[in-house]
């Protein structure tokens, strides 16, 4: 007869191995990018325009472009996402409509990013005639991160205990007053976390901005929201595949700046979540 404890040891060993197969490459990727990218980072790299066909100089226009895009996306997505989350957690009844809304959110989250790019091209660039511009790109990214914001915010709102609402309502506050002054402030850290995660996602995506805003090479800063702009992820794609003989240092440097930007946002989100858990009133 087989010894069940030996089977267990073998099984647990393979499970451990599977975990290592994921975790070790993740660690290696981050370490390699930092190690090879760090020598490229200096003040000129961060503050200069690209020179010599993007083989030298800096990446300032790409950094600024990405910051504009992310800001635009959040201006569009946060109000809609937040109100949508309030609807789901405070107003929606458990019926067919709610079920369909939730399904739509899941689907919105699952639409491939390049399809968002097509949609942005068809609606904003061509149909509404915004052209390839920061406005078109921001709106496209905004719709893409909408499900992230809605899901995180409605979870945060729902986690506020029901008794908080009952007390407020019993004191004569209206439903909206209760939501606005009682539920929302208590859910704020969770909403903030979701928003920042959405920002990180928007900053790193390339496919949705390919045809809606991204400029191959534009050695100046955008002046209005109707201008094209460079963006960090697209710039990394361009210098990795489209431009021959780019110094490896420049590529790793760009990857490091992008990775730092995205991970920084995630870190902020994690810190907010952690502090919130410690100070929780319930």
């Amino acid at each position, binding site marked *: 007869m087989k010894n069940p404890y030996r089977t267990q040891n073998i099984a647990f060993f393979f499970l451990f191995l599977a975990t290592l197969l994921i*975790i070790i490459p993740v660690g290696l990727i981050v370490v390699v990018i930092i190690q090879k990218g760090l020598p490229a980072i200096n003040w000129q790299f961060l503050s200069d325009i690209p020179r010599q066909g993007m083989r030298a100089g800096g990446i300032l226009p790409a950094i600024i472009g990405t910051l504009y895009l992310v800001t635009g996306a959040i201006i569009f997505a946060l109000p809609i996402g937040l109100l949508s989350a309030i609807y789901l957690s405070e107003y929606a009844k458990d019926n067919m409509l709610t079920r369909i809304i939730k399904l739509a959110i899941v689907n919105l989250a699952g639409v491939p990013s390049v399809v968002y790019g097509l949609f942005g091209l068809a609606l904003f660039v061509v149909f509404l005639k915004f052209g390839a511009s920061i406005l078109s790109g921001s709106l496209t990214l905004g719709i893409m991160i909408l499900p992230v914001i809605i899901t995180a915010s409605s979870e945060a709102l729902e986690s506020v205990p029901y008794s908080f609402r009952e007390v407020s309502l019993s004191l004569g506050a209206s439903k909206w007053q209760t939501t606005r002054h009682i539920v929302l402030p208590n859910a704020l850290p969770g909403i903030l976390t979701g928003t920042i995660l959405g920002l990180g996602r928007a900053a790193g995506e390339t496919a949705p901005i390919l045809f809606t805003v991204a400029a191959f090479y534009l050695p100046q800063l955008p002046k209005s929201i109707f201008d094209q702009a460079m963006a960090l992820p697209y710039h990394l794609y361009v210098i990795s595949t489209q431009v021959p003989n780019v110094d490896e240092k420049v590529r790793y440097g760009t990857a490091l700046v992008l990775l730092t930007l995205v991970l920084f946002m995630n870190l902020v989100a994690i810190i907010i979540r952690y502090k919130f858990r410690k100070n929780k009133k319930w």
Partner: protein
Amino acid sequence: MRKLKEFIIEKLILICGLASIFFVVLIFLFLLKEGLAVFKTVSPLKFLFGKSWYPISEPAQLGILPLILGSLLVTLGAAIISIPIGVGCAIYIAEIAPLKIKEILKAGIELLAAIPSVVLGFIGMVTLVPLVKNIFHLPTGLTALSGSIMLAFMAMPTIVSIAEDALYSVPKTYKEGALALGATHWQAIWRVMLPAASSGILAAVMLGIGRVIGETMAVMMITGNAAVIPKSILVPVRTLTATIAAEMGEAVVGSEHYFALFAIGIVLFVISFAINVSADLFLHKRQQ
């Protein structure tokens, strides 16, 4: 006055609540609006099963079978790699890892989910591609295999986190019952927990595969982009997503090529819709 203000706000909330439905429908309508035009020149059957994709030759040949097979091959490879590793990791995190290590592992998985796909594509280009080239003595390392490995990696966070949730939500009493009957921890996991969590794990796998099919940048950077029907996993292939991303920049708005790329978008949208709806059904079944 205050009543009116509340009335307006509540209507606004309702409208925003419906925004997700509105956008899903809007996306689909605009894909149809631009994509259906291609069927004036190619029949849907010829489009889906045509064996050659030469969109800019005269006359253009718009058969996406090579692209569909490219996507399928890369996805299949990614699924074979990522499902056992991903589910294994989920079991380890949910059941075996000590609390402290569990937190570190979860942070690592979140980190992987946060890395932009273009960064993973770049890393794949400089590390994985030369490795595949040297191991198999190929003329190029930009192959379906490289793409599968990279995509497997990108599907992991989805698979691990959803499968872990599914395992976590199995009632504790199930496991305790099995242990009380003298089962080892592994027997309890294998015979009791996994079957109980199976629909959630299936949903995790489906959503992971959905992520793989829709992935664009990394795949475009490391699969070599040859739009021919692949004969093995060691040749360059081109996926549906990469075709759109690589060619839309050159396609003239309103041209046959432009319409054809939108038609590919419809195919992708329908695939992701089907995957997400069925995964949602499995998740829903679990909750009942």
